[in-house]
């Protein structure tokens, strides 16, 4: 456990006892699970139970002592819980690998209503195995990071409780073997996201950001629910395996009005909400109001990828609805470019990263849209590594700058924060797609398949490359303004390197950002190096291949790769020149294209559009409805009913007079009557 060094809170002996005993409890939990596993063949169920219960235990532990200010204790327990989950994830992933298929368990029947039979069942297949590894692994690191980051906060216990609750819900979302369990997790992570964005709710802007996220997500959730209903209507089941099997049996449908296409589109609306795609992406940049580790965990690495995960999980269904896939691809590509362009003009370090996240998620959807689900998962994973890294790095920077987030007031932090800078550098290289860093492999696979796949189009490829160029530009700009060049740090702020509990996660994630991509070396290169495409082998059987994929020409693939890499490289060199060598240039360019710059800087006025054209008219219409329909018509009716009820009530209320012995008498008489009826 990393020490938080000088930020030592007073820890009373009771707290220490609490710490030790709770570790004991966790240990007992683990021991119990392992013992249970040893006892009977159902070790799987035990592993699942620990995997899910450990974060829940952490939530209860921290939630019950939410007033505590002992960040170290709360954080340690929470981190330990996350780590326990991570160990279970490894165990489950190994099982999946050994079994070459899904491993599942059922705890109990959740509900049985008519034809609907939903079990609290959980399953790990190759897709979710990767996902839980990422979520719990990155989650553990971020929990660890938070111990240092939240050490000065007033309510660290509450924070860690929420974080653990989030982890629990995320695992529900991932592991649920049917849409309803997933939906429970889906809503749960939404709730935790809301709670954590508005964690510093005394600031009304931050509280508003939380609400914005929640409401925007609700719109998506409505779509998601409609999707579930549609699927249940078509197939009579909500189980993933069954849905996918039926979809395979039926085969691809053409046209726009088909039920599967409809369902897919509805589900995709849900995905745009959760994964911040056009048109529902507006909440994510605002969500940066939350603590930075939260941004790293929820709004970069895990929750926002839920939409991608859901589509990948249902890949046979989506493949059976090619038109829906086209929509997914186009929305993804457009989002990638739009968000990247907004990222060019932001001054808030976290906002830049937020738009970058939206843009990268766009790439994942682009991959899904062209049928390259494996590539989407691949990019999801590498993105989790480098984006979590960059968010944590930005957290470290903000921590060092005493809460300052404006990159105009930074610069030259390379010296003060060597570890942060070094790891951030790795993240930067990964995201702009420099070989051999992680981002290169995953992004390249997406771009190549968007060009080559029969579901793809050269236009999509072009958008992708353009987006990559923008990405390289704004990320380089961020690096340059934050770490390089001369210092613009205001007087009185003395940046310092963060404690080990914060730098250790950075280093681990930095290492992963370098090597994370090597499990998916493209065939064009791998063939020469004799490195296989591990990930493709891993996903075999879980993810369907792209239908009608022709064998590729290696030369073409390498050529396209060269194009995208060199464009990205050029773009970053340009950014370097703009922001380090000739710092007067950006201003000139902005002045020259004033109108366009303002448009981009104000995020294309999307928020204003939403408010002006959708929210305000809706409020106005509601007001009119209230004034005319409600007051004059409905209210009168209800008042009449109410008067009637009141009349009856005034008679009946003598019965309910608060005399409990009379109530007891009624109970006795009721029981007597029941017995009489039974006896009769």
């Amino acid at each position, binding site marked *: 456990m990393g020490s938080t060094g000088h930020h030592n809170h007073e820890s009373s002996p009771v707290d220490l006892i609490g710490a030790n005993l709770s570790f004991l409890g966790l240990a007992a939990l683990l021991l119990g699970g392992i013992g249970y596993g040893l006892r009977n063949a159902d070790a799987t169920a035990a592993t699942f139970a620990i995997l899910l219960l450990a974060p829940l235990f952490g939530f209860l532990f921290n939630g019950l002592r939410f007033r505590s200010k002992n960040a170290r204790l709360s954080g340690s327990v929470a981190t330990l819980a996350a780590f326990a989950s991570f160990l279970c994830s490894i165990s489950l992933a190994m099982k999946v690998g050994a079994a070459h298929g899904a491993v599942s368990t059922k705890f109990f029947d959740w509900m049985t209503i008519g034809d609907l039979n939903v079990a609290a069942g959980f399953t790990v297949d190759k897709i979710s195995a990767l996902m839980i590894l990422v979520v719990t692994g990155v989650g553990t690191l971020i929990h660890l990071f938070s111990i240092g980051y939240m050490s000065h906060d007033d309510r660290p216990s509450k924070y860690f409780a929420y974080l653990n609750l989030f982890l629990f819900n995320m695992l529900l979302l991932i592991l649920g073997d049917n849409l309803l369990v997933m939906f429970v997790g889906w809503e749960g992570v939404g709730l935790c996201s809301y709670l954590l964005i508005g964690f510093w709710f005394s600031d009304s802007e931050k509280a508003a950001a939380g609400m914005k996220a929640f409401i925007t997500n609700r719109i998506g959730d409505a779509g998601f629910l409609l999707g579930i209903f549609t699927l249940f209507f078509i197939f009579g089941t909500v189980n993933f395996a069954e849905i996918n099997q039926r979809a395979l049996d039926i085969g691809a449908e053409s046209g726009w009005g088909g039920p599967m296409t409809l369902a897919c589109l509805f589900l995709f609306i849900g995905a745009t909400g959760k994964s911040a795609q056009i048109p529902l992406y507006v909440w994510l940049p605002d969500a940066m109001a939350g603590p930075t580790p939260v941004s790293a965990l929820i709004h970069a690495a895990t929750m926002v990828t839920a939409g991608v995960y859901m589509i990948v999980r249902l890949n046979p269904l989506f493949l059976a609805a090619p038109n829906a896939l086209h929509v997914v691809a186009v929305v993804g590509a457009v989002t990638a470019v739009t968000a990247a362009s907004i990222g060019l003009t932001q001054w808030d370090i976290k906002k830049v990263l937020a738009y970058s996240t939206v843009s990268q998620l766009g790439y994942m959807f682009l991959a899904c849209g062209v049928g390259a689900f494996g590539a989407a998962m691949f990019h999801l994973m590498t993105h989790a590594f480098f984006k979590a890294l960059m968010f944590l790095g930005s957290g470290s920077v903000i921590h060092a700058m005493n809460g300052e987030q404006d990159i105009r007031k930074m610069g030259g932090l390379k010296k003060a924060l060597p570890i942060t800078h070094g790891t951030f550098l790795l993240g930067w290289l990964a995201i702009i797609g420099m070989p051999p860093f992680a981002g290169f492999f995953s992004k390249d696979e997406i771009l190549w398949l968007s060009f080559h796949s029969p579901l793809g189009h050269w236009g999509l490829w072009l958008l992708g490359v353009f987006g990559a160029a923008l990405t390289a530009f704004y990320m380089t700009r961020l690096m340059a303004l934050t770490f390089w060049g001369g210092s613009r740090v205001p007087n009185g702020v003395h940046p310092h390197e963060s404690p080990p509990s914060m730098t250790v996660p950075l280093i681990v994630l930095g290492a992963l950002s370098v090597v994370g991509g090597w499990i998916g070396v493209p065939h064009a290169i791998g063939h020469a190096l004799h490195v296989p495409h591990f990930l493709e082998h891993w996903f075999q059987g879980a993810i369907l291949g792209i239908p009608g994929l022709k064998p590729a020409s290696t030369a073409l693939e390498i050529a396209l790769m060269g194009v995208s890499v060199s464009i990205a490289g050029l773009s970053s060199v340009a950014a370097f020149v703009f922001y380090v060598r000739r710092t007067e240039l950006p201003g000139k360019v902005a002045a020259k294209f004033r109108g366009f710059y303002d448009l981009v800087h104000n995020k294309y006025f999307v928020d204003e559009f939403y408010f002006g054209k959708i929210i305000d008219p809706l409020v106005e219409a509601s007001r009119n409805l209230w004034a005319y329909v409600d007051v004059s018509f409905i209210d009168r009716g209800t008042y009449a009913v109410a008067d009637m009820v009141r009349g009856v009530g005034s008679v009946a209320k003598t019965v309910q007079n608060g*005399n*409990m012995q009379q109530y007891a008498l009624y109970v*006795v008489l009721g029981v007597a009557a029941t017995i009489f009826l039974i006896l009769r």
Partner: protein
Amino acid sequence: MPNTIDTILKVSLNHYLVLSAVLFTLGVLGVLLRKNVIVILMSIELMLNAVNVTFIAFSRYSGNIDGQVMVFFVMTIAAAEAAVGLALAVLIFRRFKEINIRYFEHLRG
């Protein structure tokens, strides 16, 4: 026929059930008639005990241990109920200096 009387007096499941029913009714009467909250709580304990007798009797006569487990749970709940009930009674007493069930009417919203 002394034999018949012996058959009737020979203890069987029904004897336990009757004992339990009478005990339960006593508890009911206590709840209905007494004013003191503490005595009412005691009457509730009486009823729970009566139910426990039934559980154990059925468990014994059907050779099924589940009844005893249930009694275990009932006792736990009863103790929990007594703890909270008495805490409430203490509050009432502090407020009114007397523990009359009628004071709970003041709880009306």
